[in-house]
């Protein structure tokens, strides 16, 4: 009985985090991006510096009419946002923020998270195809091409750190982490972060939703709650990517007084990475499709293969 209560409690906490943390990231994006562009961003909703802006947005989205285009494939169209959103919720279950502070500690947690994150793209593809809209379809094709290009370096970068730690368990990787990994695994961290950004279609890799040419890519025909779910999926994706980067490459809960406030360290590092996600969006223009593919195949893949070799040498040298 106590076990069941504990499981339910863990699930509830993960669900709560899933609903709240993406909103925090969204608010940070609102405000940080505004200040980086010499604006102030939302100031009214909620009173203090517009903290409730996203809640207000949510209320607005819920009130809107649920529109499905006449030529669309109704079932697929309606299911797409859920398929896009759920994988990130499932992935969040396996990410630890402290020793024992995890929804469900899995033996092959890293593999699980990477596998599940790839599923989310199917939702975007479903949306792009079922909208019966040329812009959506083009966006869908771009999403697929982008995913094919960046999935490989993403998984290989994760494999590098797993190789270094000698385990696929996320908790185990953090336990094995050493500060000098910041140097040793730096290329893998870079590749992981960049490829993750590309998988989430975050700027500067947002060519699938490039508003100047494709309106809003696969999400063009969506409105109201379904659109909100897609956006929530994007921000949940940022949270999962940031948390994974923090746990895999930045040492998770390692830091001063880690016995008492370890989980705070994980959250702080996650927040920092999430801030960098927003920062990069403001600082760099969108990559063209050919630049995007070239970066993946000629930049990230060779780099991560080199990193794998370096990691292998390091592991062999250290174990001997």
């Amino acid at each position, binding site marked *: 009985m106590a076990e069941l209560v504990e499981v339910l409690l863990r699930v509830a906490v993960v669900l709560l985090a899933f609903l709240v943390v993406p909103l925090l990231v969204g608010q940070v994006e609102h405000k940080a991006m505004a200040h980086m562009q010499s604006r102030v961003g939302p100031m009214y909703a909620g009173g203090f510096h517009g903290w409730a802006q996203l809640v207000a947005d949510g209320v607005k989205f819920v009130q809107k009419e649920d529109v499905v285009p006449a030529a669309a494939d109704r079932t697929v169209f309606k299911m797409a946002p859920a398929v896009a959103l759920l994988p990130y919720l499932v992935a969040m279950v396996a990410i630890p923020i402290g020793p024992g502070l995890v929804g469900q500690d899995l033996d092959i947690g890293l*593999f699980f998270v990477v*596998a599940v994150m790839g*599923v989310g793209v199917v939702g975007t593809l479903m949306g792009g*195809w*079922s909208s019966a809209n040329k812009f959506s379809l083009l966006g869908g094709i771009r999403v697929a091409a982008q995913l*094919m290009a960046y999935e490989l370096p993403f998984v290989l970068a994760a494999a590098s750190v797993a190789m270094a730690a000698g385990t696929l368990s996320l908790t185990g990787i953090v336990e094995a982490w050493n500060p000098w990994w910041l140097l040793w695994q730096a290329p893998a961290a870079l590749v992981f972060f960049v490829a993750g950004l590309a998988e989430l279609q975050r700027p500067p890799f947002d060519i699938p939703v490039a508003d100047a040419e494709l309106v809003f890519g696969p999400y063009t025909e969506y409105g109201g709650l379904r659109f909100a779910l897609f956006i929530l999926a994007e921000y949940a994706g940022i949270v999962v990517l940031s948390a994974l980067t923090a746990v895999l490459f930045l040492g998770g809960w390692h830091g001063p007084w880690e016995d008492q406030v370890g989980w705070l360290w994980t959250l702080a590092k996650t927040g920092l990475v999430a801030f960098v996600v927003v920062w990069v969006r403001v600082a760099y223009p969108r990559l063209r499709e050919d630049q995007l593919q070239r970066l993946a195949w000629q930049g990230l893949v060779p780099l991560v293969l080199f990193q794998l070799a370096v990691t292998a040498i390091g592991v062999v040298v250290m174990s001997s």
Partner: protein
Amino acid sequence: MTVVEVLFLLLGLVAAGSALLVVTTRTMVHAALWLVVTLGAVAGIFLLLAAEFVAWVQILIYVGAVVVLLLFALMLTKAPTGPQPDLDARRALPAVAVAGLVLAVLGTTVVAGFHGVELDLDGAVVGSAQTTGATIFQQWVLPFEVLSVLLLAALVGAIVLSRGTGRRGGE
């Protein structure tokens, strides 16, 4: 009946049902999406059969890469949105006959051959990453290396195939 058996039956029904829809649906993209369901259900069965690592590899490679490739190919070959009447050739009857024959032969073989044999899943069979990795790199290194050469060959082949027309068109 144990929980595992009930789960197996459910997942098996889902897998078989969606597999049938893959080969019978009139809308091409639906076929790919039903394939996702089939593959997911089979991955679930792998989990039940204590092959945890294989299950997640199945999700990562099949759902994450193969199905995305298939959808990509459908989009690039201009698959229409609505249902199409002429997806199937007019040879459903012979095809059903052949498939039925295959099922009859394979089915009777396995049922007759392994009737009454129980699968004990409580024991030490654990397909964790550690055991799978150890066996691959200790016992099965040669096939693994051969496989990597095969993958390289496939990679080179795919590149050559997709570059070929471009050059011909340019000249």
